[in-house]
């Protein structure tokens, strides 16, 4: 039984280079989907790569609070970098998710026109899809669409089928990229905030963080919502990032209405509409709103927003009800002004590569962005020799709930902890929780366990498993139970022992 390596915010040991302090060939700021994909891609080469993130766990912010959809790019602005990268990325996911052991499913999507006005727009959408090289979008008759998805509103006038729109576990994608990166030499430093970027004579010299300086010649800004703050560290201020809030509901697995495919609204001049999507784990997700804010810390769900979500989705799936909700969440899309994907090496600051303006399709495009950035670094003079022993495969935590009876029995006999079911809503066992804590880049908080295993994501929302997960974390990490947090510093679950 392996134990956690160390108690401390980072899950990877830090190797001070000669002369004291840390150094790396590349520092990636931001462990969301984009930053992590870039960092992992870089481990294909003989490079020292460090990935830092201010949060206590990988996963980013927007990357873990979105609609969990892998897009085809059918509706991207044609001819843009975004369109190119998203359409390139989509087909890569089958192989990637098989290699990284990430839950992924090509459900397809139905774009449902429920008004005459929306119906008129469908042809235009197909044409736009073709311009984006998404050629498998096709028109469905009303009857065909309803045969595929009987829960769609009877107001349906026409529909499009987008066969390759898919669903994924967005957090596990990032965790898998990080774990595989770490396996291939990536150093991940969580709870590590970029405070400044040192330059000399217009060249990047290092990244200053709350955990010390990391000497480097190349820094990748993949800081999402804080991308403008990081850019300002090298004196670049030609853009701003503000949050666009999206509120979502997750519905119970046992709703009396079911959908197999993502049901998308037809965007009109007035509104983008709200979607309903099956999640990879069997729930239904509905949302999002789109609210432009100025406060990057505003992560509250609002009564108005939730009402808007339900009203919007009911136009497509009338049976949806807030009563079926098990939880709500919101994500803050990093919205760049001026808009658009901006992925380029800076001309003024040598070694700085900005990856900004990535939003709404960032999860999808991440792996294509990674290759794109690798090219940029190559052209910028970084010596990139391929690693001979790069291992692209990562094995995830075996889910007890997915095993056959025989496999379950064998697993329990080998390790009794797998016979102890902790999360009864999702049937997650103690053995899996221990594995989630003890593997490299392991979970150190209740939410980190939740995201890796779904323990606490069921209908009781951690009411049953919560106290048990806290105890297991405390035991495995060797800390008192009252120090266990929900998601890192400042979020202790408990106030203290009372005996």
């Amino acid at each position, binding site marked *: 039984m392996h134990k956690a390596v160390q108690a401390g915010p980072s899950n990877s040991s830090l190797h001070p280079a000669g002369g004291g302090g840390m150094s790396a060939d590349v520092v990636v700021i931001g462990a969301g989907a984009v930053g992590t994909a870039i960092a992992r891609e870089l481990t294909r080469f003989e490079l020292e790569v460090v990935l830092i993130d201010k949060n206590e766990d990988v996963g980013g912010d927007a990357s873990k609070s979105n609609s969990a959809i892998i897009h085809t790019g059918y509706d991207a602005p044609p001819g843009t970098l975004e369109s190119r990268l998203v359409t390139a990325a989509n087909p890569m996911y089958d192989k990637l998710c098989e290699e990284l052991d990430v839950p992924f499913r090509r459900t397809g999507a139905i774009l449902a026109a429920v008004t005459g006005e929306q119906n008129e727009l469908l042809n235009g959408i197909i044409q736009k899809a073709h311009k984006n090289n998404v050629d498998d979008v096709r028109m469905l008759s009303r009857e065909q669409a309803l045969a595929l998805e009987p829960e769609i509103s009877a107001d349906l006038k026409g529909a499009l089928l987008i066969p390759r729109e898919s669903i994924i576990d967005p957090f596990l994608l990032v965790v898998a990229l990080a774990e595989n990166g770490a396996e291939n030499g990536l150093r991940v430093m969580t709870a590590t905030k970029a405070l400044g970027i040192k330059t000399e004579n217009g060249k990047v010299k290092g990244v200053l963080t709350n955990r010390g300086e990391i000497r480097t010649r190349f820094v990748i800004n993949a800081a999402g919502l804080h991308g403008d703050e990081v850019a300002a560290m090298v004196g670049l201020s030609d853009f701003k990032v503000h949050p666009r809030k999206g509120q979502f509901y997750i519905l119970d697995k046992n709703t009396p209405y079911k959908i197999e495919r993502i049901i998308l609204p037809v965007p009109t001049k007035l509104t983008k509409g709200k979607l309903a999507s099956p999640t990879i784990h069997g729930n239904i997700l509905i949302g999002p709103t789109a609210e432009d804010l100025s406060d990057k810390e505003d992560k509250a769900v609002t009564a108005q927003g939730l009402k808007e979500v339900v009203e919007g989705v009911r136009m497509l799936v009338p049976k949806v009800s*807030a009563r079926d909700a098990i939880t709500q969440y919101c994500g803050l899309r990093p919205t760049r002004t001026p808009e658009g994907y901006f992925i380029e090496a800076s001309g003024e600051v040598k070694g700085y590569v900005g990856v900004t303006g990535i939003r709404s399709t960032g999860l999808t495009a991440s792996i294509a962005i990674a290759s794109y950035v690798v090219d940029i670094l190559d052209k910028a003079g970084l010596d990139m020799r391929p690693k001979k022993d790069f291992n692209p495969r990562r094995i995830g935590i075996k889910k007890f709930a997915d095993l056959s009876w025989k496999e379950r029995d064998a697993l329990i006999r080998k390790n009794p902890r797998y016979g102890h079911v902790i999360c009864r*809503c999702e049937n997650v066992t103690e053995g899996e929780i221990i594995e989630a804590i003890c593997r490299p880049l392991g979970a150190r908080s209740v939410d980190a366990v939740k995201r890796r295993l779904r323990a606490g994501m069921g*209908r009781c929302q951690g009411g049953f498993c919560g106290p048990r997960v806290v105890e297991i974390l405390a035991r495995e990490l060797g800390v008192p139970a009252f120090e266990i947090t929900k998601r890192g510093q400042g*979020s202790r679950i408990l*106030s203290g022992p009372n005996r």
Partner: protein
Amino acid sequence: MKYDVIVIGAGPAGLAAAIAARENGAQKVLIVERDCSLGGILQQCIHPGFGLKLFNQDLSGPEYAGRFISEMEPKGIEVLCDTMVLEIEGNSLKCANVRSGIVTLGFKSLVLAMGCRERTRGAIGIPGTRPAGIFTAGTAQRFINMQGLMVGKKIVILGSGDIGMIMARRLTLEGARVEAVIEIMPYLTGLTRNRVQCLDDFGIPLYLSHTIIDIRGRDRVEGVTVAPVDGNMRPVAGPGRDIKCDTLLLSVGLIPENELSRKLGIEIDPLTSGPVVSQFMETSVEAVFACGNVVHVNDLVDNVTIESRKAGKYAALSALGKIPGASRVVPVRPLAGVRYAVPQKIALDFHGGEKICVSLRVAKPDRKVKIEAVSGGCVIASLKKKIVKPGEMETLNLAAADLEKITGQVEIRVQSEASHG
């Protein structure tokens, strides 16, 4: 391994059912329990108030459970702890057991006694952030009473049900400050006894007709916003009142835990969220019985014991082949004014000669009422009550003689004395 009766759950319902099964002739009786010890939720209910009705004693939860636990061995009831039932296939259970791996257990009759879970913040959609420090009251109770861990220092409690009030007292005794108990209804939903001994004793304010419209705090709760509600229980427009706190406890309802029941295809009553049962506590699936909070949420554990003894008895008789098959079955329907009634059906031809206890809850508080069972236009049983409340379950008894008057469905109704029958 085939048992006459298997009981799922070793809380008060399961314990009483198992004992009754043995006492009524079942030879091999097994309780399957997922926790490492017996007693279910009673283990964490360390306060007194249990057993007043049944034993004329004021016992704590563990003491009440202890009375039944002590009978396991003498009565030869087998107990399997650390065992989670994963699947029910036909006449057998597939379970995960820490020591034995996957265990398959056969039964002739099954008693479902899995209890209930708590309604969550997510289910009621309270706006605001999602910081640490939000607990359902029962989860907080487990932390404090079984794990010796304190949940916070400044507490606001949403819901004036018993569990919320009991936790208000517990937290205060442990040195926390309970700022307020917030209740959306215009009346207390728990027992008056608890308001006196849990809130009044400690000067904890109770705000009726109020709800929480916002939760603040980035990493940990920093405060909640409380607003009054109108006659439709909707928040009145306005900024509300901020209460600084570091913990929010939710006592906003219990939901029978019927995962396994649904998998079995058992008919569920949408009014109770529990299985439709006959007076024998038999569900829509033959030889599968249910009792306790999994059927409907009870207030008094004493009533759970009474009901569960029935379930255990008839589960045993069923296993022994002593319950004849098809019988005339009439539905029991609650009329307006009655939120629900259990059992939801009565088997007429074999009723064992016992009286049938109809458990019911009224939809709203009232005084000077008559609770009646009506069939074919005739009142077949009646009960006068000086006061009725939704938070206090009532029992209307149908004697064996009353059953002969049944000519079709039985309706349960509540009538104010002022109105004409």
